[in-house]
């Protein structure tokens, strides 16, 4: 069985020293090993942005696609080979701005993949513009007088889109994050894990210290029941979206793959491409 070291490769990330993304990378590697995966059984599909580079930093199959489209690519991979564990990953701009349309529909569709958003509330790779996750009044290069748009709440959106697994974490909490990623991988359906990942270069507001002060861990509520949708939604709103932990899980809804008529449990990619002459004749018969 592979250890987390086997999910490492020799590529040095081009992230700034201190970037939250390093811990997320480590958590994915640990979680993959902890759930018993071999590197070739994992596919990491990422978008564009600093965070999008993550697929190249993990020793596994990886595809670094185009901006905002990690989710549809990841869903295509999963449909073609459901035996693979598929993790989609990207930043808050990737998933909640340009790719928001895909995020909502991937949640609705509920394929058995895990989506890890590295949420730093800013655009890093383009050197500091506002993101849909930026707070109102947040000053950036593109909002010199402060953002005048409201902040998007991905957890509320996910809940209302019918998510079956919603979690949030903080990059500094390696242990908690690793555990959530494991649970996300093991969840039979779409799992969203939003991870606060401070940008040490461009975001001087939402810093490590800021998160430590503002995060509300679910550990504080021993009676919290993540299977209750109303409770989950209330908790998200009460904490202004700063909640961390496993917020909601619906174990009863089947994954998309399990609901496709005639879809086999084996990888479609390994199935026969040819059909028989008899099958072909049947197809043609309706045109006579």
């Amino acid at each position: 069985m592979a250890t987390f070291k086997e999910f490492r490769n020799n590529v040095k990330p081009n992230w700034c020293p201190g970037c939250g993304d390093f811990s997320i990378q480590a958590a994915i590697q640990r979680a993959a090993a902890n759930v018993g995966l071999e590197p070739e059984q994992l596919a990491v599909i990422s978008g564009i942005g600093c965070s999008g580079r993550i697929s190249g930093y993990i020793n596994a199959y990886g595809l670094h696609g185009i901006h905002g489209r990690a989710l549809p690519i990841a869903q295509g991979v999963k449909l073609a080979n459901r035996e693979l564990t598929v993790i989609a990953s990207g930043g808050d701009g990737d998933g909640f701005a340009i790719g928001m349309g895909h995020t909502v529909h991937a949640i609705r569709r509920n394929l058995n993949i895990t989506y890890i958003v590295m949420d730093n509330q800013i655009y890093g790779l383009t050197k500091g513009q506002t993101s849909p996750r930026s707070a109102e009044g947040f000053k950036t290069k593109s909002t010199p007088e402060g953002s005048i748009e409201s902040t998007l709440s991905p957890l509320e959106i996910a809940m209302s889109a019918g998510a079956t697994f919603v979690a949030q974490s903080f990059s500094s909490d390696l242990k908690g994050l690793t555990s959530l990623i494991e649970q996300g991988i093991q969840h039979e359906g779409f799992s969203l894990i939003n991870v606060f990942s401070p940008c040490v270069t461009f975001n001087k507001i939402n810093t490590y210290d800021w998160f430590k002060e503002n995060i509300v861990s679910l550990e504080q509520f021993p009676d919290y029941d993540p299977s209750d949708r109303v409770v989950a939604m209330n908790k998200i709103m009460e904490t202004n979206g700063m909640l961390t932990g496993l917020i909601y899980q619906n174990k009863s809804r089947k994954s998309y793959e399990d609901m496709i008529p005639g879809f086999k449990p084996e990888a479609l990619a390994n199935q026969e491409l040819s059909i028989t002459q008899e099958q072909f004749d049947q197809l043609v018969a309706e045109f006579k």
Partner: protein
Amino acid sequence: MISQLSWKIGGQQGEGVESTDRIFSTALNRLGYYLYGYRHFSSRIKGGHTNNKIRISTKPIRAISDDLDILVAFDQESIDLNARELRKGGVIVADAKFNPTVPEDVEARLFAVPITKMAEELGTSLMKNMVASGASWALLGLPLEVFNKAVEEEFGRKGPAIVEKNIEAVKAGAEFVLEQAGGPLDDFKLDEADGKQKLFMIGNEAIGLGSIAAGCRLMSAYPITPASEIMEYLIKKLPKFGGTVVQTEDEIAAVTMAIGANYAGVRTMTASAGPGLSLMMEAIGLAGMTEQPLVIVNTQRGGPSTGLPTKQEQSDLNAMVYGTHGEIPKIVIAPSTIEDCFYDMIEAFNLSEEYQVPVIVMTDLQLSLGKQSCEPLDYSKVQISRGKLVKDSPALEGGELFKRYEFTEDGVSPRILPGEKGGIHHVTGVEHDEVGRPSENAMNRKLMMEKRLKKLNNLRIRDAIRVDAPNEKPDLLIIGMGSTGGTIDAARDMLKENGISSNHITVRQIHPFPAEQLKPHLENAGKVIVIENNATAQLAGQIKMNAGYADKIESLLKYDGNPFLPLEVYKACKELS
């Protein structure tokens, strides 16, 4: 006895025009006639004039006719809009309910049949299409039992009582009109057909069928006219073969999902039309850059923007050839017959894996939606080729990666699927090295660009150009693409009768352009006319740019939303020669 005639049914959209046409033509197909259909419809669901026209022939035909023999009209508007298309002595079968009148300048025989009344007497006005089609079928003197069989199949699901009622409706219409006309019309009596079994389908169905035969098991698509029938066909069929269709949230998701599925090893397609293709452009670049197989069908319609969404056009050629930023290898092929729609899909999937490039199959609305006879399809001709797909590659030594983008002589590298132990590599739309890792190294960049672009250096598809060249030195070489071939051939028959010799070339490989194959034909022709459904002569532009001979190339363009008619092509050719 006649060898061909044209029949048209018109009414309000949602009034049963489609189903009448379907039953009428299915019955004709059973008798072995060659059929070619044309749908005139609008982008709305109910209301608005719509009509379906079928040409019926004892010989192969691939074009609508200039005129019309029989018009079945559910309302006066259908007569007013279509009666002038009737040949002298043509026939109108109309519902007596609206007191039909024939325009003064039209010489036609009118049969006013109480279509709605008869249908209502039998139980429901819904059956008026049965009364109408029964009446027109009877005028042709064709065997009623064949027609009834088609009715039985159309309504069988609804139970024997419904079938019986509909057959009664057919009979009522037939008997009424025969009494009025004094029996079947002698001058509408068709020669017997060859009786050989043909298929009767639309291009989009042939594309769907071809995709299944090619091993396509997934489709991700967003609904759009005139492409939706492909996904609708495949969602009915793919589950039987373990696959499925995903209706995505938009065309960007459709194409990127297809890229992901192809990357993971399943032959996956998407299909769309102009606006959707515009949305897919960035992702087509990703497929080109990361060398993923990808098959996209573009069923062209009237552009730009929303344009004429239900009308014929061939104006996406340049967008397909040049679209996406940067430079990638890409194949664009244009089926020109219903049979091509089937066989070209097999070719498209093979090419996409052999060359690891996006392949765009470019049809047009008339080819995609025009229902027509198709010669029997030969499944034994279907060969699946997956190119340099590697299986069971030896395990990689510590830290080593699979050279997915290895520099090779032909530019095509070995490809391996996720899940293979010895195949781990990286894939990125960023410029990359042989194992897929990002690289900005200038030498690597140059080599990688050259590697990708040289893949198509020697590409030749089956019939890159389809040549019908009976004349060594023709007065005229007529060049077209897509659905226009049948119309061009019909025009050539008229040219021949008038002493003008012509050759005909259909360009099927649009990109890379098969210039060398075309050159000798351009050289030998007196004059060249390129016929296309667009306003800026895009095909002619490709020919001039790639093969030369600009001084002898003329264009006939049509961009009013309608397909060419044989007479239009004939007149333009005659004027030129």
